[in-house]
């Protein structure tokens, strides 16, 4: 029998705990990876075919929208992996408390952001090694 109690689905009016944001981001990044991994696997296979095909893939990666799509997939991979490690640690019993959950979720977002910035800098041919050795 259908439940007749009222529901509040106006999620745009709600403020979410950081752990909740971490969780939905984990799910979204998972879907992006599902959609994107096919392209990545296909590109790998094609690039392995011959030197000419490899160069074709390299030429593809310079096209702007391809770069953006690749960045989205790699960013998702980065985030999903870090958030996944957080999940595994919680499965082992580490960081299951309220404050610990908040801290670890924030750490995951922060480290993803840092690595993403480093990635963008590298993509823009910034001299990363020289910057890091300063």
């Amino acid at each position, binding site marked *: 029998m259908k439940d007749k109690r009222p529901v509040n689905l106006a999620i745009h009016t709600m403020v979410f705990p950081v752990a909740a944001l971490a969780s939905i981001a984990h799910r979204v990044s998972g879907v992006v990876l599902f959609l994107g991994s096919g392209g990545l696997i296909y590109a790998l*296979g094609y690039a392995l075919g011959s030197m000419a095909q490899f160069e074709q893939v390299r030429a593809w990666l310079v096209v702007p929208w391809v770069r953006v799509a690749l960045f989205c997939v790699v960013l998702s991979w980065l985030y999903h992996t870090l958030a996944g490690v957080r999940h595994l640690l919680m499965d082992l019993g580490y960081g299951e408390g309220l404050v610990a959950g908040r801290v670890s979720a924030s750490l995951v977002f922060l480290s993803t952001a840092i690595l993403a910035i480093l990635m963008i800098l590298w993509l823009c041919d910034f001299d990363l090694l020289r910057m890091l050795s300063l």
Partner: protein
Amino acid sequence: MSNGTNQWLLQRFSALILLAYTLYLSCVVLAHLDTPFDYSHLVSLYKPLWMRLFTTLTLIALAIHTWIGMWSITTDYLTERALGQIGNGLRLVAQALIVLLLFAYLGIGLSAVWFQI
């Protein structure tokens, strides 16, 4: 009793395999950051037998891990409660398409690693 324990374990186990592969590829990327990466480098990366086997294992782990994840998502959102009568049918169709797509990924990946080089 079907209580999801097997899926829970498979999800974690496949995650560890995927993590290992991710870490290995990251090391390769970091090693090549400032040097040009060309066809010969890619081939020498995937030519060794152990790397082909590792990649094969990872491709299978990817299919399992992704299926469990997408199953969770489809059973969360494509439901009768959310979408009415059509919900069940949509979910089953979506799950079927997902399985086919995952099989395609596996096939393309295996052919890349065993038949392309």
